[in-house]
């Protein structure tokens, strides 16, 4: 890891620790917007990372951005950092303006259809998208719509939409956005290869969720280690019981595996578009989340699932993120199909690729 990356990580870790208190996250889950956290990150130049300085970004590479995201996952930061990164990367690539404000993207995971209609006055956008992350707090919505002729990516104003609040298991905003003929004359937009953009977003999405989960997994291990050290039962620390030790070890194994899978996916992403590592990461980290979260709860006992405790802020995010942008089964099906197509003789080459 280079010096620059280390500095970024230290700086973001400090910001996240300062802001992401138990209370702040609880309030966010009940509807408050973590504006101060966003502002602080923006001032530190952490929002437009991996967008070149020429087009107004902070510079740095994908690895820097994804490292920041991992920390935000670790501290359950209730902000659309992943979505804003994804959106800005896409906008920069399309030559559209980028933003320091919170952004989101729709339709999210193809969940809904957005149409672009041409009329006398120009173009309008219509449709409904479900589960749009953080839509109610976004200052711009990046929309991919389909006209009869082509696909467009447009940046529109949330004020022109109806946003119906919803949330995922973690209390993160996952809203319904209704576009009832939003006029496009003042919106930045560009024509795109629809399938390519969709694939890219799906792959960006899987990677950002993988990295967020890797962060949250680190957190639940820390919490489990601390709790099992402090908590006494039958006159000894919990972590002195073999039955607990065996579970701590399994938990540590999953967290370590998730970390390695995320590292490789990030590394591959930095160098070139290599979705294989992303797929492997989403599968393996999804498995890790599914094994690790119940263990962390079991170690914490009942206290861990009360709103008094912070543990569930991470586990509920793991339960949400493991499903977003494809479950481990969905990605495994895709990977397995590919492996079966190339055949037994290529299996080992795939593993060592």
């Amino acid at each position: 890891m280079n010096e620059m990356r280390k500095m970024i990580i230290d700086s973001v870790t400090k910001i996240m620790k300062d802001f992401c208190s138990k209370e702040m996250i609880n309030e966010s889950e009940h509807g408050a917007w973590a504006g101060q956290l966003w502002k602080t990150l923006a001032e530190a130049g952490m929002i437009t990372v991996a967008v070149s300085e020429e087009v107004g970004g902070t510079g740095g590479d994908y690895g820097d951005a994804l490292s920041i995201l991992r920390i935000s996952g670790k501290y359950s930061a209730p902000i659309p950092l992943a979505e804003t990164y994804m959106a800005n990367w896409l906008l920069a690539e399309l030559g559209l303006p980028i933003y320091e404000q919170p952004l989101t993207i729709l339709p999210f995971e193809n969940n809904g259809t957005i149409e672009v209609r041409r009329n006398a006055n120009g173009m309008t956008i219509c449709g409904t998208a479900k589960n749009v992350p953080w839509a109610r707090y976004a200052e711009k919505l990046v929309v991919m719509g389909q006209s009869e002729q082509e696909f467009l990516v447009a940046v529109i104003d949330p004020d022109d939409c109806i946003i119906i609040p919803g949330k995922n298991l973690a209390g993160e905003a996952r809203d319904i956005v209704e576009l009832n003929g939003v006029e496009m004359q003042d919106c930045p937009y560009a024509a795109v290869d629809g399938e390519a953009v969709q694939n890219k977003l799906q792959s960006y999405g899987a990677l950002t969720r993988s990295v967020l989960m890797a962060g949250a997994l680190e957190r639940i291990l820390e919490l489990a280690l601390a709790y099992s050290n402090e908590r006494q039962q039958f006159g000894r620390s919990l972590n002195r019981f073999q039955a607990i030790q065996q579970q701590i070890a399994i938990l540590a194994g999953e967290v370590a595996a998730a970390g390695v899978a995320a590292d490789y996916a990030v590394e591959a992403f930095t160098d070139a578009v290599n979705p294989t590592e992303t797929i492997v990461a989403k599968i393996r980290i999804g498995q890790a989340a599914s094994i690790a979260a119940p263990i962390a709860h079991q170690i914490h006992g009942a206290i861990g699932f009360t709103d008094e405790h912070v543990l569930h802020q991470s586990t509920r995010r793991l339960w949400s993120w493991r499903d977003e942008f494809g479950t481990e089964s969905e990605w495994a099906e895709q990977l397995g199909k590919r492996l079966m197509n190339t055949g037994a003789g290529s299996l080992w080459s795939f593993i060592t690729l």
Partner: protein
Amino acid sequence: MHKLLELPVVKLSEETEKLREEVRKFISEELNADSFEPKCDSWLGELSQEFSRKLGERGWIGMTWPKKYGGHERTAIERFVVTEELLAAGAPVAGHWIADRQTGPLLLRYGTEEQRQFFLPKIAKGECYFAIGLSEPNAGSDLAGVLTSATKVEQGWILNGSKLWSSGAHHAHYMIVLCRTSPQNPENRHQGMSQLLVDLSANGVTIRPIRLMNGEHHFNEVIFEDVFISDDMLVGEVGNGWKQGMAELAYERSGPERFLSTFPLLVELVDILQDHTDKRIHIEIGQLAARLRTLRHMSLGVASLLQRGVTPDIAAALVKDLGTQFERDVAEIARLLVSPRLTAPSAVHAPTKYEKRLAEALLHAPGFTLRGGTTEILRGIVAKGVAAR
């Protein structure tokens, strides 16, 4: 077969099956009248005073108790059948659940005649709810850590301390509180405890919600500050509290609520998959069904032994362990078969029933393997039990 693991094959009589049909008819009528929505884990958190009262009217609370206390002198198997039907339907039974399951049996075994006559008929009517008073901040798996204490005064006791996790205490009328009536003895940590019956509306009782991670309020902290308990509210003998509390815990295990908490999700899963013909779906559903059916047979076997006066502690602990793993697996298998984000058409804004049941199951799941004895504790009991024989 190892003696402690032997469970009988139970054949239900025609009469019992008739009773089942009655319960099903009742549930179906209630569903048609929209009186409740089937929910996961309904016995923990779904309370309906009216529903409880209706069950009381039909004689489905306190079923096994003597008639003179308002009971119905039916068999443990009959109670099992009523219970499993209600749970499978996700019915709102949380109100009277604890009182029916453990307060009643505890009072029948250890209570005074006056206590029985006063409380049991009310419970059986579905009008008197109890909360559990065992756990404390430093006494969860290790109940010997109980610090709540009662000091003897004239004609009664003064109670101070607090109880944790008391589910439904904010609706319940009473709690049976395990407390110290003599100071802690480091040599024998189980000595000097007693059980007192506490009116939760009494002066000095404060009930504070402990919200779950999803914001639901089922659990409470109940704080006692100089609460006066009259002598006639002592349950059993002074100093016998540990043994009584352990007996109470045993009533908690191996009932159908230890494997049916997520059954309403399984129903929605099968429903939503109706039109799929994927081999994987068939295999997963078939495996879950085989596990569930076997679990039910095991649980029925435990009920039948209890009926015969045997207390199959080891088998009950096993059923609880296997059952709560099953409850969790239903949720984990469901999400991989039908990812919730893909279920609802975008035109529908409200979450589907499947999504709601899945969320309930996932968010309640951490409790399954903790409540009523953690998996680790139960496995320790089982291992020591079968090794000792």
